[in-house]
């Protein structure tokens, strides 16, 4: 080992060679310049563009996440709105159906009532006409009978009786007939 150290000492800065452990200002200055150049190359060729891309990407991701959040919120709002609308239209439909049913029922009772009324009227009218016909028939019969009676009476009496007396007699006869039946 001692020999090794001796050799190292022997090779201390000679012409054309630095010693193993030496500080040389030239090398320091050139190393500084080289380091600066490498720094600039690294900075402008690699660091700056990559950082730019990374920042852009981060920005893009943030933006897209925000957009997604927004879209989600919007979708939720739209969904809520549609659900509400659906609910409303369901209610409305129910209301319409109920109203229609009510109206129909009302109409039904009305129709039935009017039909009943009409039927009653018809019945009444029919009864009235029947009554009238009956009376008419009775009157006709009465007249016929009275004529027959007059005829019979005139034939029997063979005697001219004034119109007035005639009627008086007929009425008497008729009332007697009426009492009899």
């Amino acid at each position, binding site marked *: 080992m001692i020999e090794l150290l001796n050799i190292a000492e022997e090779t201390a800065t000679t012409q054309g060679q630095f010693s193993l452990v*030496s500080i040389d200002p030239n090398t320091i200055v050139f190393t500084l310049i080289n380091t600066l150049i490498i720094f600039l190359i690294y900075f402008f060729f690699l*660091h700056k563009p990559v950082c730019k891309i990374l920042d*852009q990407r981060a920005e893009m991701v943030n933006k897209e996440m925000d957009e997604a959040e927004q879209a989600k919120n919007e979708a939720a709002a739209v969904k809520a709105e549609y659900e509400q609308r659906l609910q409303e239209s369901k209610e409305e439909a129910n209301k319409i159906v109920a109203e229609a049913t009510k109206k129909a029922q009302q109409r039904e009772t009305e129709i039935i009532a009017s039909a009943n009324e009409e039927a009653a009227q018809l019945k009444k009218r029919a009864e009235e006409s029947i009554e009238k016909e009956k009376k008419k028939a009775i009157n006709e019969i009465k007249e016929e009978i009275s004529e027959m009676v007059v005829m019979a009476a005139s034939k029997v009496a063979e005697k001219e009786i004034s119109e007035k007396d005639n009627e008086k007699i007929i009425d008497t006869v008729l009332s007697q007939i009426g009492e009899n039946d």
Partner: protein
Amino acid sequence: MATDLLKTAAEFSVQGPIWSFDFYIGDYHVIISESIVVQWIVMAVLAVVFFILGRNLKVRTTSRRQMAAEYLVGLFRNMVRDTMGEKYHKYTAYIGALFCFSILNSLSSLFGFRSPTSDLSVVAAWGLVTFVLTQRNKFKTGGVKGFFKGFVEPLPFMLPFNIIGEIANPVSQTLRHFANILAGSVIGGLIYFALGQIANGLGSIGLPAILSLYFDCFSAFIQAYIFCTLTMAYVSGADCSED
């Protein structure tokens, strides 16, 4: 045989970086060492890699190339954020560049170069940067008052220790990085030398590979990581602001 080995061990030596070329600017002797030339090669490789990784980036992508780029930048971003806090995100690029530069400088030994990081001057330059950044941050966050106040805290008689501490931090991190890589290459060299001596290359297939994996690859990574982490810790630790 053991004595033979010891005798021949004297032939083994680890040299400092050679002068690749030198010239004069006026009276000043400019020496371009091997370390600087290797750095230029590493820089060229890194520039190509950074350029390829960093072009045609898209916000939406499945490209492996872009994923690698994003992973790398994200790694340094997280490293700086976790160690220094969000406030110091501007140091991310320096830390990233330093990490890549340091690790490739150390790994250049795999291609038969002399690692620039096993040259004290190279790592000292980075240590100097750390020192400057630390003092600058102290000045920036605390102002003149905070800067000088930091030296007499907690008690005025601590002044010399504080000054030593300020200098010792970058010096220790520099020496740690430099010495680990240098020691790795020395051990690697010794192993190759010893194996060459005892077996004439017969045993030099498996063992150097494993050792090289540790001393070159793992050590290169861990030293770059430690150096960057310490730089971040020193700079953010110099924060004098009240919050």
